[in-house]
């Protein structure tokens, strides 16, 4: 899927650290991912897996105190974003890389009209006049299918429902026709029928605008709906990387396999759920070896000694961080 296509965004060896009790601990470790043009890459994981931190690291939106990018590069349009000055970074944000967030209720400024908020990015990055920017904002509101957009342009966020606010967020992100859209759990706070609308809309807009989308979610069902490729994260690492079809048809990592078995489905009976025993190790006490070892049914003594590497599995572009599974397929 990503063959013959240019890479839009390339993350290499990213390590993002948080300060806990005076010491720095990595929340994201040795993360390398690339996103091709026009591709939707889903990053899926449970809470604490580091998926949101990854997205925030790309745009350097982490809290200024207590968080830092410890190592790695984020290559975009020939530049390493981690090395840019704050000022240069501002001109990337909302311009060629845009982001939308989980909480549509709190992510919009309550004292600015939605029109002003959409127009803002256009005036900042394109130097457009306020009138031109507002005209463009109106076009965008129509594009994301806000009913009677003309009159709603001058409304404030509290006058919109959660689903509508998320559309406004999307319109805002699209304002400068970004190359890459980072979507951090954009539908998690929404009801399923609204989620379905927003997902389909994002997919249409991706085509229309020729964007790459990095879609962060905890919901495997959502992943199956929209992703071209999937990265499964666990405890700050990518444990499996595959095309969406390969991942669901032939999951390789024991964590991915287990995750798929824990999700009850609406469309068919699930005989019995198989919960994953135990819990994710805390960021302050990561084991030496494989982070999943303590919960893993395939665990070998060697798993606890050495951190496994992300290596090619069968099938194009399929990679897995599990020596036991790699051994099995080879053997």
């Amino acid at each position: 899927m990503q063959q013959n296509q240019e890479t839009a965004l390339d993350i290499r060896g990213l390590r993002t650290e948080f300060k806990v009790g005076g010491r720095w601990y990595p929340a994201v470790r040795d993360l390398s991912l690339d996103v091709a043009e026009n591709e939707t890459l889903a990053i899926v994981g449970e809470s604490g897996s580091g998926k949101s931190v990854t997205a925030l690291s790309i745009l350097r939106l982490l809290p200024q105190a207590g968080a830092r990018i410890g190592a790695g590069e984020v290559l975009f349009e020939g530049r390493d974003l981690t090395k840019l000055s704050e000022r240069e970074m501002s001109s990337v944000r909302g311009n060629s890389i845009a982001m939308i967030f989980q909480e549509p209720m709190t992510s919009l400024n309550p004292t600015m009209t939605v029109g002003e908020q959409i127009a803002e990015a256009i005036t900042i990055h394109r130097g457009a006049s306020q009138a031109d920017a507002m005209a463009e904002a109106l076009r965008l509101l129509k594009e994301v299918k806000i009913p009677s957009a003309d009159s709603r342009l001058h409304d404030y966020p509290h006058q919109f429902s959660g689903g509508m606010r998320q559309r406004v967020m999307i319109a805002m992100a699209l304002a400068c026709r970004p190359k890459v859209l980072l979507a951090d759990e954009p539908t998690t706070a929404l009801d399923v029928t609204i989620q379905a609308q927003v997902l389909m809309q994002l997919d249409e807009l991706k085509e229309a605008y020729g964007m790459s989308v990095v879609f962060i979610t905890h919901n495997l069902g959502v992943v199956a709906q929209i992703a071209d490729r999937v990265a499964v994260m666990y405890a700050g690492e990518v444990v499996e990387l595959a095309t969406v079809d390969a991942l669901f048809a032939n999951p390789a990592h024991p964590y991915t396999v287990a995750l798929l078995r824990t999700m009850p489905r609406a469309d068919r009976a699930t005989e019995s759920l198989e919960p994953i025993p135990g819990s994710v190790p805390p960021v302050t006490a990561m084991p030496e070896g494989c982070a999943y070892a303590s919960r893993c049914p395939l665990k070998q003594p060697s798993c606890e000694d050495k951190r496994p590497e992300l290596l090619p599995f069968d099938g194009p572009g399929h990679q897995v961080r599990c020596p036991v599974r790699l051994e099995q397929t080879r053997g």
Partner: protein
Amino acid sequence: MTAGNGALEVRNLAKHFTIGGGLFGPEKKLVRAVNDVSFTVPKGTSLGLVGESGCGKSTVARSLLRLIEPDAGSVVFDGIDVRAAKGAALRQLRRRMQIVFQDPYSSLNPRRTIQQALEEPLRVHRLGTAREIAEKIETAITEVGLPKQALDRYPHEFSGGQRQRIGIARALVLDPELIVADEPVSALDVSVQAQILRVLERLRDKRGLSFLFVSHDLGVVRHFCERVCVMYLGRIVEQGVTAEVFDRPLHPYTKLLRDSSPVPDPTARLTLTKIMGEVPSAANPPPGCTFHPRCVRAAGPCMTDIPALNEHDRGRQAACYHPETWPGLQAVAAAG
């Protein structure tokens, strides 16, 4: 009314709120949060209550325990009128019907140890000697899969899933017969969600508990509940055996809900050509069938008359003038 058979029977339950009014607010508005809701939970079974936010499912759950006082209708548990119960009778009922909450971070008092939290109900109800109480809480805590050492600790020392187990243990110490579970797994990661569902399943089988299981997640409800009620804007629009309702929904809203629920299968992507509109405000519901503005099948009486919840097939009820048709399912024309 049926005499003591251990069932929960709810008839024509209604709850209205007023919003606004007061000195600062806008004009007073009556919000019919729950309207004419009726269902039965036979002893030892689970009934699911699904719907999107604001459909009134949580209000129903809380009304049953009189955490919110309903405005109309009857709630009868094992032959006893819950709404009329007072004093000792109400306390007795509260022992027999318990609730498990959604948010494990808000459901435990941060200043009380687990021991204190589990002991308190037994002490308040004066159930047993100190020794009996100690035994009872040990049983409860091991039943939900936590070690006894957990008793001396404070809630903040536990993860979300563990707290949810503690919340379940607290509901168990009074030996209830019915548990109202209000989105008990919605705040949890999927792997933990499966753990909690396992615990609840085990309790249902071992203790013969009945459940009213409120959730927005069709998958979870399908897994846990034999029967389901689908709610939309304060009303039940469809009820029946869960698998049948989700496989062959009669009400267009049920179908929309099912088709919108993403499944972990890239070959079964959403095929909805068009999902119209959003849920209207309960303060200002459309006339007729409240779903009609979003409904592809709406026609004729849908715009003006509220459809009744009628039997369409054996054990299948739906409130719709133009229900979906499925091969092998006889569509009984709705009266009126």
